[in-house]
């Protein structure tokens, strides 16, 4: 009997959300019915999410993709010689040649979607572990120097240079140090951390292991939000595989020191994506933000030197160690080096993950990759950088997507999420929602955020109801200034950004309205 044909059906939760599990079951049933030998591999997603569930078959001529596949299509796919890569209306051809994927620059997500995420051999065959191998022969100071030279900046939103953080923690002397991964990806419009954890978890573990060696930490935590149960489960399994393979020894050669990695689940609090709030949560407390200084690199988890980095920051490190800082710094523009995993979301025809070097324009992402709106309606606004980012107008689509250009345009990159809205959106309601969200999720520690958000919501209600609009807009402006300047962290400090960007760019939505309009 011939070897079973490999059929790949993603286990990524976005793919599952549109029926990937049912497709996998249907493929198994149909193969059994027809006596065909099939080995189903549940891979990660390649990130062309509008094509999910995207099924792939391994043929003599490479992989052939089909999508989006419904369980009801599986019979006709087998009729069309699916296992030989036969022709069918859903046939997409070689996945790596799909323009959406071929036009990306994938360093971080190079392996995502290729294999079973828990297959360590496939991980190594795909270039994994090369960075760790190099790190094990380098001194902690050399690792830090390499990360510094790469120009890698924090992908969680703040954009702080990772190497400088690491250097501070390396130089701090303490009996214990920690490395923590912030996987509390709460910004609407973002899902890159989730995709990587579900699709290529070893990259993150490798990055954490290198970080542990760089600062001399023996313990690490991955803090994942509870809205991501699949990511939690995949990461926990991946840590066990990693440890069974004896890869949790980041010390010098021959050292018996173990690096112990814990996967912790959040409990539904957006604020725990703020690093000091996350540390409080890891200590088992209310996720209230801490006043800084001291910074976590000096006094973090349990008061010990701690580096806190986002998933994508840490997962970039293996590539940097393997290929070198100079190779990494060739990507990007100015002080924004490397690539960014942009996430195309909302009313977008081709939503998904696009990894490109910094400097790509918003237009290339939204129009060339994204194909405009899914609804076919005219585009009205793009929220860039999550609920604490700015709403940009269609006139601003030529802005370059890097830290500095976006800041100059009055926005911010955040975690790289882009949410597309069509012309039916009411920007006054979006501004109100920004305040409402802050009121719901504020940790309550500082007054500008705790009280300001509620007052902001009430003021927006009056504006929407047409009450004394000019005076209330002036009041709102005052309030925004106070929240920006007086809040303890970015939650209260940046909530004014979506509010004020909406007012500035879409003033027509904030003019006095008649009762029937509100």
């Amino acid at each position, binding site marked *: 009997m011939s070897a079973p044909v490999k059929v790949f059906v993603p286990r990524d939760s976005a793919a*599952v959300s549109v029926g990937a599990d049912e497709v996998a079951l249907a493929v198994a049933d149909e193969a059994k019915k027809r006596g065909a030998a099939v080995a189903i591999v549940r891979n990660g997603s390649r990130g062309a999410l509008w094509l999910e569930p995207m099924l792939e078959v391994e043929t003599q001529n490479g992989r052939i993709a089909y999508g989006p596949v419904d369980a009801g299509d599986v019979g006709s796919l087998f009729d069309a010689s699916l296992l030989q890569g036969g022709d069918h209306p859903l046939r997409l051809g070689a996945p790596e040649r799909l323009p959406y994927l071929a036009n990306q620059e994938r360093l971080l997500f190079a392996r995502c979607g290729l294999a079973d995420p828990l297959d360590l051999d496939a991980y190594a065959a795909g270039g994994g572990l090369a960075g760790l191998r190099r790190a094990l022969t380098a001194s902690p100071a050399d690792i830090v120097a390499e990360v510094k030279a790469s120009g890698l900046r924090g992908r969680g939103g703040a954009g702080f240079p990772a190497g400088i953080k690491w250097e501070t923690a390396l130089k701090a002397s303490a009996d214990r140090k920690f490395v923590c991964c912030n996987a509390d990806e709460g910004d609407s419009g973002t899902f890159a951390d989730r995709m990587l954890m579900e699709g290529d978890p070893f990259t993150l573990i490798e990055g954490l292991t290198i970080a542990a060696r760089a600062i001399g930490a023996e313990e690490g935590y991955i803090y994942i939000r*509870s809205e991501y149960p699949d990511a939690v489960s995949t990461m926990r399994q991946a840590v066990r595989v990693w440890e069974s393979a004896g890869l949790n020894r980041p010390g010098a050669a021959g050292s018996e020191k173990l690096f112990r990695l814990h996967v912790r689940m959040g*409990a539904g*609090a957006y604020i725990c994506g703020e690093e000091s709030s996350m540390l409080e949560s890891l200590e*088992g407390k209310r996720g209230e933000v801490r006043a800084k200084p001291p910074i976590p690199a000096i006094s973090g988890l349990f008061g010990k030197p701690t580096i806190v980095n986002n998933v994508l920051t840490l997962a970039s490190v293996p590539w940097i160690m393997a290929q070198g800082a100079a190779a990494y710094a060739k990507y990007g523009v100015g002080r924004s080096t490397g690539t960014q995993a942009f996430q195309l979301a909302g009313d977008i025809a081709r939503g998904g993950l696009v990894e490109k070097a910094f400097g790509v324009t918003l237009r290339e992402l939204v129009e060339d990759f994204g194909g405009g709106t899914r*609804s076919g309606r005219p585009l009205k606004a793009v929220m860039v950088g999550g609920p604490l980012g700015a709403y940009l107008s269609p006139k601003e689509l030529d802005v370059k997507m890097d830290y500095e250009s976006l800041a100059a345009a009055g926005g911010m990159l955040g975690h790289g999420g882009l949410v597309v809205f069509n012309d039916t959106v009411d920007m006054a309601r979006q501004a109100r929602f920004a305040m409402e969200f802050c009121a719901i999720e504020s940790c309550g520690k500082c007054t500008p955020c705790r009280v300001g958000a509620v007052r902001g919501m009430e003021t927006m209600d009056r504006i929407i109801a047409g009450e004394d609009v000019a005076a209330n807009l002036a009041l709102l402006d005052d309030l925004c200034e106070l929240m920006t300047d007086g809040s303890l962290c970015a939650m209260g400090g940046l909530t004014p950004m979506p509010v004020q960007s909406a007012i500035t760019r879409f003033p027509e939505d904030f003019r006095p309205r008649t009762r029937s309009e509100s």
Partner: protein
Amino acid sequence: MDRTKAHPAARAICLRHGDRPDALIEILHDVQTEMGHVSDGALAAVADALNLSKAEVTGVVSFYHDFTRAPRKELVLQLCRAEACQAVGAQALFEWAEARFKSADGVEVKAVYCLGNCALGPAVMVGNRVYGRMTEEKLTRLAAQAAVTEGASG
């Protein structure tokens, strides 16, 4: 008085986590999953086991949206109402669902803010599974199916 004896199940969960106060959130997750909510008895037992005050544990329970002091309905429909889903009609779907299931026994419609399925919204979560491109029709069907498996009536 040793209140932990009054609640052996909560006591066992704490032991499983080594009675470590830093594991409080993990412990509360287990209590919530196994018992459906954090009761007064469980809360007191956890506080005793971890050598924390009841006020401290109450503070943590009330801070996080995942923990509840009263049992949830049998079927919880978690509808995303964050921006990416709003852009594809989540607010209308949420309002519709609230009205549709208002009088349904055993069904709770809960707003959540981002399920990480932002390219395939509106997103809904039932149990541990996310469903994408949700519509009123699909949600009605989903609730009916879940009601069969979870014993709730929609």
